[in-house]
C-alpha cells in the first residue's frame, strides 16, 4: 500500500458513510410516505406528467455513475494502483460469482414482471415504471437524490479505474 492509503481509506469511509446515512434517511422517508400518502392518485400529480423530471432523473443518474468512478480512484489509491488481476484471485472469489448470479436472476425476474405488466393494459398488475413515476411525482428532489446515489454506487462498483483493457484483461 502507498503511504497515503490510510488517508484514502478514511475518505472512502466518510463518503460511504455519508451515502449510508442518506440512503437510510430516504428509506425511512419512503416508508413514511407509503404509510401516510395516497398512492392511488399518483398520476394526477403535476410532476408525473412533466417531461423534464424524467430527463433530469436520467441525467442525474449518469452524473452519479461518473462520480462513482471518481470515488473509485480513492479505492485505487488505497490498494496502491490498479487492481492486480490473476486467475487464482478470481478463482477464489466464487462467492462473488454466485452473488452476481443471484442478482442477475433477481433482475431477470423483475424484468420478466415488468414485461408482463407492460404488455397487459389497464395497470393490472402495475408495472414497476408506475412506482418510479409515483415516487418522482411525490417528491422529485428525493427521487433525484436516490437516482444519484444509485449511480454513484454502481459507478463505483462496475466502472473501476483500471489500466487494463477490456479486450486483454490479463495483460499488465
Amino acid at each position, binding site marked *: 500500500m502507498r503511504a497515503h492509503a490510510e488517508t484514502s481509506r478514511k475518505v472512502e469511509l466518510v463518503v460511504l458513510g455519508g451515502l449510508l446515512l442518506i440512503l437510510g434517511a430516504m428509506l425511512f422517508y419512503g416508508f413514511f410516505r407509503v404509510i401516510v400518502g395516497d398512492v392511488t392518485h399518483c398520476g394526477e400529480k403535476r410532476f408525473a406528467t412533466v417531461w423534464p423530471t*424524467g430527463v433530469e432523473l436520467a441525467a442525474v443518474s449518469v452524473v452519479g455513475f461518473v462520480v462513482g468512478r471518481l470515488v473509485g480512484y480513492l479505492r485505487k489509491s488505497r490498494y496502491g494502483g490498479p487492481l492486480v488481476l490473476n486467475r487464482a484471485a478470481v478463482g477464489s472469489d466464487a462467492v462473488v460469482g454466485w452473488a452476481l448470479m443471484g442478482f442477475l436472476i433477481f433482475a431477470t425476474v423483475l424484468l420478466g414482471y415488468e414485461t408482463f405488466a407492460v404488455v397487459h393494459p389497464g395497470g393490472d398488475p402495475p408495472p414497476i415504471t408506475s412506482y418510479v413515476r409515483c415516487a418522482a411525482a411525490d417528491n422529485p428532489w428525493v427521487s433525484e437524490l436516490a437516482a444519484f446515489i444509485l449511480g454513484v454506487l454502481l459507478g463505483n462498483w462496475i466502472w473501476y479505474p483500471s489500466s487494463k483493457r477490456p479486450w486483454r484483461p490479463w495483460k499488465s
Partner: protein
Amino acid sequence: MTKIGFFIFVAAVPGLLWFVALFDWYMTLRRKAPLGHHLQVFLLAHPWLAAVLAVVYAAMLAHFFLHIDHG
C-alpha cells in the same frame, strides 16, 4: 398501485442498496477488502459481464426515467 406494492418497491431499491452499502462500509472499516473490491476484481476479469451490466443499467434508465413524459 397498492401500498404493499409500493412498500416492496421502497424495500427493494433503497433498502437492498442500503444493506449492500453497509456491508461495503463495514468491510472498509475492518480494513478488509470490501464487496466493491471483490466485485471489481471479478468484473475486471470478466469485462463482458461489466459491459452487459452497464447496458442493462442504461436500458433501465431509459425505460424507467425517460418514460416519464405524458402520463
